[in-house]
């Protein structure tokens, strides 16, 4: 897709803003109460 659009892959700092990285892996959500 990047090649088709003529984009350049960027690594390093750009990855640090990925919102997925802001989600804590564990523990998970509380379903009832703590």
């Amino acid at each position, binding site marked *: 897709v990047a090649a088709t659009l003529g984009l350049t892959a960027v690594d390093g700092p750009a990855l640090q803003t990925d919102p997925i990285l802001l989600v804590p*892996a*564990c*523990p*998970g959500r*509380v*379903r*009832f*109460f703590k």
Partner: protein
Amino acid sequence: QVNVQQPLCDSPEAEEAALVALDYLNAQHTHGYKYALNRIEEIKVLVRPDGDLYSLEIDLLETDCHVLDPTPVANCTVRPKVMTAVEGDCDVMLKKVGGALTVIAFKCKTDESTEDLCLGCYSLLPLNDTAGLEFAHASLATFNNNTVNVTYTILEVGRISSQLVSGGPQYSVEYVIVEANCTDDACVPLNEPLTERGFCIAKGSLTAHTVDCKMFPMPVVDANSTAVPDPALPPAVHVFTGSPSHKHGLRHHKLTSHHDPHLSGLLSAESAESDEIV
């Protein structure tokens, strides 16, 4: 060198493993109540050629469905904190082979939450509390007086709690009943496949109380009209014959605490957390 993956605790993969673990733990549990999943605390996956190993830590909460109640745990109500929540913390090891997850070991610790207790609230009593058991029998006598041709006896007491009010102690007791053959001396529970069982909640005092019993659906009968025994039916050794089957002072029923048949070392030993004999 071990390849360890750490999926998100709320990922479908983690949820699938947690639900397999929950069903297994509830199936192992022969007394007390079913547990519901409250939170996935931790998950690690050890990728191995002979099948991935899942190390899972889950937080469970007690529901109001007795283990003999066939209601799916998804339809059971988790007891609120104010009713003194009972919580289970479990470490579970599962193995995934051919896409299917199987529990291979677990370790559970059961505790009750007392932080939200208040003046006038019900508080849990030991399952062998004399006055509480006396109230349970009084309420069952009331129930038996309103049944025709059948007499029930107590198979297991699930909870006893009391509340101090101005008129004296008020009890709230939950117990499982079973059809029984009664003489003047004692009642012997029937242990046949089609023996009727139910779950009762009684509230009030010795002299003024309400008792509400819900009978469990009968076991499935196959094409040859032979009743299929319910696997949840406890063995005869647990039957109640005038005194509670739990002679210790447990404040509540605990999850089966430990099962690590082949994997000592995979689960850290934290001592025997449960006194209940299963």
